[in-house]
């Protein structure tokens, strides 16, 4: 069991890091939405899936390739997210968290069901963009260029988001608005619009992850449903609403999962939840969470 070479270990760690970047990107969106708006967004997985489908449609209908999709899909889905916020989520402001959770969960089931009804469960193909095909021989492993791109790109997006929320004036307004909306309003800031934009931004992050995942997995209606539970676990471990927490935990859990796949593959789908249970026992607010 432990006779694994260092070469193999390195390659598994790298693969873990790649998966971790998806966890980080998705849990970041969830953390932004929860931290700023106090909405537990169960539709996140479905929106991620729709982001991937959006890329597929852009290619098959409009003939716009991957790079266009990387820009347009988050914008389109972000607009769709804002529409959801304006028409539905908005009405639940001030009510118990559970209502938002039920609404978004219901939406997720509807979206997923609709897509499955029309496209089946096997999924649609989406090719890796020409510029990123091929692979590098790192000596200890064969690293596909596309995967390298995913890690670098999502890390950049994560850090940029963290910077925008924690270090800029806009971010400061946003954080203040979550703490005390009426006071911030008194300063002339349009809080409802800020909330709508923030939700749209979170959804855009999900769609971005969807576009990144499209060439790796099939574009499948269930791709989000399969992932969302793990991502929620990541957010809980990182600490609900903590931006840095979700980024760090996302990458870290990708690594842990990667190692589990080597040493005890049967448990690779469970290990995240075991860690979640342990963390909750020791630190109920999560690793980076602030206790209220």
């Amino acid at each position: 069991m432990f006779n694994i070479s260092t070469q193999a270990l390195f390659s598994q760690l790298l693969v873990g890091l790649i998966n971790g970047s998806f966890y980080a990107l998705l849990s970041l969106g969830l953390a932004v939405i929860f931290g700023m708006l106090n909405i537990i967004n169960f539709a996140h997985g479905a929106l991620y899936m729709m982001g991937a489908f959006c890329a597929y449609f852009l290619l098959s209908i409009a003939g716009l390739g991957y790079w266009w999709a990387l820009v347009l899909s988050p914008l389109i889905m972000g607009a769709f997210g804002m529409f959801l916020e304006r028409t539905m989520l908005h009405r639940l402001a001030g009510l118990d968290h559970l209502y938002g959770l039920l609404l978004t969960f219901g939406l997720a089931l509807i979206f997923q069901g609709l897509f499955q009804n029309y496209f089946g469960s096997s999924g649609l193909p989406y090719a890796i963009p020409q510029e990123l095909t091929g692979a590098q021989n790192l000596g200890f492993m064969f690293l596909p260029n596309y995967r390298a791109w995913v890690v670098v790109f999502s890390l950049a997006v994560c850090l940029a988001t963290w910077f925008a929320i924690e270090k800029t004036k806009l971010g400061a307004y946003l954080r203040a608005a979550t703490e005390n909306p009426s006071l911030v309003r008194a300063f002339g800031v349009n809080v409802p619009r800020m909330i709508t934009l923030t939700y749209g931004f979170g959804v855009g992050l999900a769609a971005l992850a969807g576009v990144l995942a499209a060439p790796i997995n099939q574009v499948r209606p269930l791709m989000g449903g399969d992932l969302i539970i793990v991502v929620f676990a990541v957010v809980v471990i990182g600490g609900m609403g903590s931006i840095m927490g979700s980024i760090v935990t996302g990458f870290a859990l990708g690594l842990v999962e990667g190692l589990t796949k080597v040493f005890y593959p049967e448990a690779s789908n469970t290990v995240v939840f075991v860690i979640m249970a342990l963390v909750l026992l020791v630190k109920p607010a999560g690793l980076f969470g602030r206790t209220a």
Partner: protein
Amino acid sequence: MKLMVSALALTAALVSGAPALAQDKIVKLGILDDMSGLYADVGGAGSVIAAQMAIEDSGLVAKGWKIDIVSADHQNKPDVGVNVARQWIDQEKVDGLFGVLSSGVALAVTGVAKEKNVVYMNSGAAASDLTGSACTPNIVHWTYDTYLLANGTGKAVVKAGGDSWYFLTADYAFGQALERDTSAVVTANGGKVIGAVRHPLNSSDFSSFLLQAQASKAKIIGLANAGGDTTNAIKQANEFGITAGGQKLAALLLFLTDVHSLGLKMTAGLQFTETFYWDMNEGTRAFSAKFSERMRNKQKPTMVQAGVYASVNHYLKALDAMGGNVHDGVKIVDKMKAMPTEDALFGKGTIRADGRKIHPGYLFEVKKPEESKYPWDYYKLIATIPAEEAFTPIEKSACPLLKK
């Protein structure tokens, strides 16, 4: 009022307590399948449509029979499947269970079918144990099984020089059975099995498992999984340059919908075993045209859906021959075993004493993109495995029914 209720109850008790009297022309079929998960395209809603088509084609309704279908999603969870089956039989008086993809659920349901004495015709699950160590007098296993897959694909690959294997196995009854049966074929034909990695059902990322397979230096990476797991594994094997590095993939179970989903560019040249392909002859084409007309995504039928059609077809023939529904699973299955089978999709065949449906298997190869002339034109036939060699020889069957 009270009197009337107790009179009703008494009548009900009499009717249900006296099956010998209850020969009628009322039939209720239950399609228990993965309706929403990674195998839903293989069976799912398509299996329900196939069953409906079999009922329509039987002409029994015109002869005064009342035939209903119920369907449910077992979510690939044995406990869910068992509960639904139990409820159907107890409360809705379901006479037969059809479909039942996913070997874990399929094996669990065997017990319920036997206990409640209903007909159980499986089309979709692969584990050869269904007519082996787990066989019952109530089961007919229709379309294919792991023995056939191992024997068809496994043997062909070893003979073509692929003599060292590493398995990527879905970690449940099906994957384990497929790995076991294929390993046996590989070693019997002079090859060797270097190792295996077991992945959880419904994994989205295979890169880690693929790297382990790559490191094993085996010539062949055998995919002992199905549906979404297989498509993801194939796609990612391409990405990681596994095939470019000289190793070959053997998809032990590949369905038409998987090939459609991956596209020919990704799958060209893969060899695998099936018992039905929509484009084999006039009969299969006519059925498939009608079938895809009724599917929302216009897909052509998979062998699993074809198997549901053919099994319902044979079941209804047996009922017709018996002159009515006796609501006795074992009696009906015995009748089905006594009658030769014939339908447009699988041709002529028989059902053996252990419940194994016998028909030929086919080794197919996925066409290159330039060879495909029209939509869904994906396979070319490489070899036919004669019916008598396709399944576990009866003298080697572990089925306890045969030991009487």
